C-alpha cells in the first residue's frame, strides 16, 4: 500500500482514538461546561478522523469505508501514537494530553494545509481551525490549574510529567512524500507554544528522558485493547446494521 495511505491512517487514527478517549468524559466531567467543551473537542476529533479515514479508504480502492477502517481493524493495524490511548487520569491529565496533542495537530494541520495534494490540504485547512480552539481551551486550563492553588499546581505538574515521555513519538520520522514535511521540524515550534503556556502556568518543562515509541508501527500500550473493544463491539456484534 502507498505511503500516503499509511500516513492518512496515522492522521485518522490519532484523531479517532483521541475522540474515543476524550468522549469518556461525557457525564463525568467536573462541571457541565467542561463536559460540553470536552465532548465538542472529541466531536471535532471524530470529524477529522472520518475525513482522513474516508480519504484513506478511497485511496486504497479496496471497498473499505471509514467504518470498516475504524471498526474492523485490530490493535496492531492501528497507526496512532500511544499518547492518545493513555487513560484520561484526572482532569489535569486530560488537560495536559489535550494541550500537547492539539498544539502538535494545529502546527501539523497548518503545514499540511499547504500540501500539494488538494484533498489532504482541504481537510487539513479545516482541521487546523478546529484544533486552534482545542489549544486555546487546554491552555486556559493549564494556566488556571498550574497557577492556581498548591494542590492544583502539583496535580497539573504531575500530569505534564506523566504524559511528557509520550510526546516524542509525535516527532518521529514518519510522513508521506505528499505531505511534504518532516515531523521533527515541528518540535521547535511545538516547544515554543508549550513553553509559553507552561511558563504562564508557573510550571517547568519536564526533562526529556525515556521516550515511548511504536504506535506508528502498530505497537500499542496495554490500555489500547480495552479502548478498541469498547469502540468496536457494537459494530462487530451487529454486522451490517443501519440506523
Amino acid at each position: 500500500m502507498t505511503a500516503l495511505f499509511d500516513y492518512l491512517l496515522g492522521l485518522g487514527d490519532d484523531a479517532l482514538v483521541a475522540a474515543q478517549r476524550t468522549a469518556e468524559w461525557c457525564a463525568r466531567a467536573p462541571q457541565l461546561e467542561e463536559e460540553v467543551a470536552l465532548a465538542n473537542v472529541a466531536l471535532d476529533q471524530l470529524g477529522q478522523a472520518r475525513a482522513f479515514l474516508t480519504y484513506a479508504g478511497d485511496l486504497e480502492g479496496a471497498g473499505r469505508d471509514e467504518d470498516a477502517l475504524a471498526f474492523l481493524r485490530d490493535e496492531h493495524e492501528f497507526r496512532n501514537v500511544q499518547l492518545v490511548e493513555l487513560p484520561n487520569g484526572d482532569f489535569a491529565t486530560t488537560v495536559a494530553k489535550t494541550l500537547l496533542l492539539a498544539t502538535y495537530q494545529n502546527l501539523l494541520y497548518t503545514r499540511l494545509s499547504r500540501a500539494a495534494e488538494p484533498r489532504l490540504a482541504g481537510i487539513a485547512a479545516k482541521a487546523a481551525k478546529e484544533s486552534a480552539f482545542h489549544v486555546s481551551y487546554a491552555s486556559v486550563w493549564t494556566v488556571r490549574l498550574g497557577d492556581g492553588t498548591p494542590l492544583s499546581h502539583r496535580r497539573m505538574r504531575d500530569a505534564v510529567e506523566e504524559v511528557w515521555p509520550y510526546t516524542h513519538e509525535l516527532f518521529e520520522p514518519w510522513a508521506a512524500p505528499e505531505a511534504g514535511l518532516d515531523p521533527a521540524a515541528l518540535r521547535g515550534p511545538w516547544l515554543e507554544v508549550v513553553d509559553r503556556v507552561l511558563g504562564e502556568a508557573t510550571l517547568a518543562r519536564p526533562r526529556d528522558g525515556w521516550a515511548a515509541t511504536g504506535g506508528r508501527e502498530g505497537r500499542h500500550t496495554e490500555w489500547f485493547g480495552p479502548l478498541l473493544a469498547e469502540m468496536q463491539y457494537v459494530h462487530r456484534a451487529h454486522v451490517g446494521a443501519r440506523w
Partner: protein
Amino acid sequence: MVKAEVEAAVRAVPDPELQVLSIGELGMLREVSVDDDGNAVVTVTPTYLGCPALELIKADVAAAARAAGAADVEVVVSMSPPWTTDWLSETARAKLADAGIAPPGRLSLPLLQPGCPRCAFPDTTELASAGAAACMALRLCPGCGEPFEHLKAH
C-alpha cells in the same frame, strides 16, 4: 427556469441545529448547477468536519431540490475552502442576535468584546471559552444578569 427555482429552494433549507438560519444565510451553500435534463448538483460546505447534522442537511437539500423541479439531485460535500464565520450574511448575524447568540466579529477587523445580544450592554465577561460547540463561548452580561452564547470568529 429550473436552476433559479432549485437554487432558491436549497438556499432556504433550514439548518437543523440553528433552525432560525437557512444554509444560504450560514454561507454553507457553495454552488448549484442544473443541466439540460434537470439534473442538479448542489455543493455544500459543513461548518465543521464533525458536523453530525450533515446527513440530514444532505437529505433536506435533495428533497428541496426535487420539490423545486430537479429531476435528479447529487449533493457534493466540499471541505475546501474551509467554512468561515465571515461567510455569515448580515441577515444571519441579525437572526443570531435575535436568538440570543452574540454574532462573531469579522476576521479582517480587530476582535472586539461582544456586547449582550439581549440588552446591548457592552462590557461582558467570559464564563467558559467553549460552550455548546468548541467555537461557541459562554459569556455573562452584568447589565441584565443573563448568560449568553457568543459565536467566536474563525
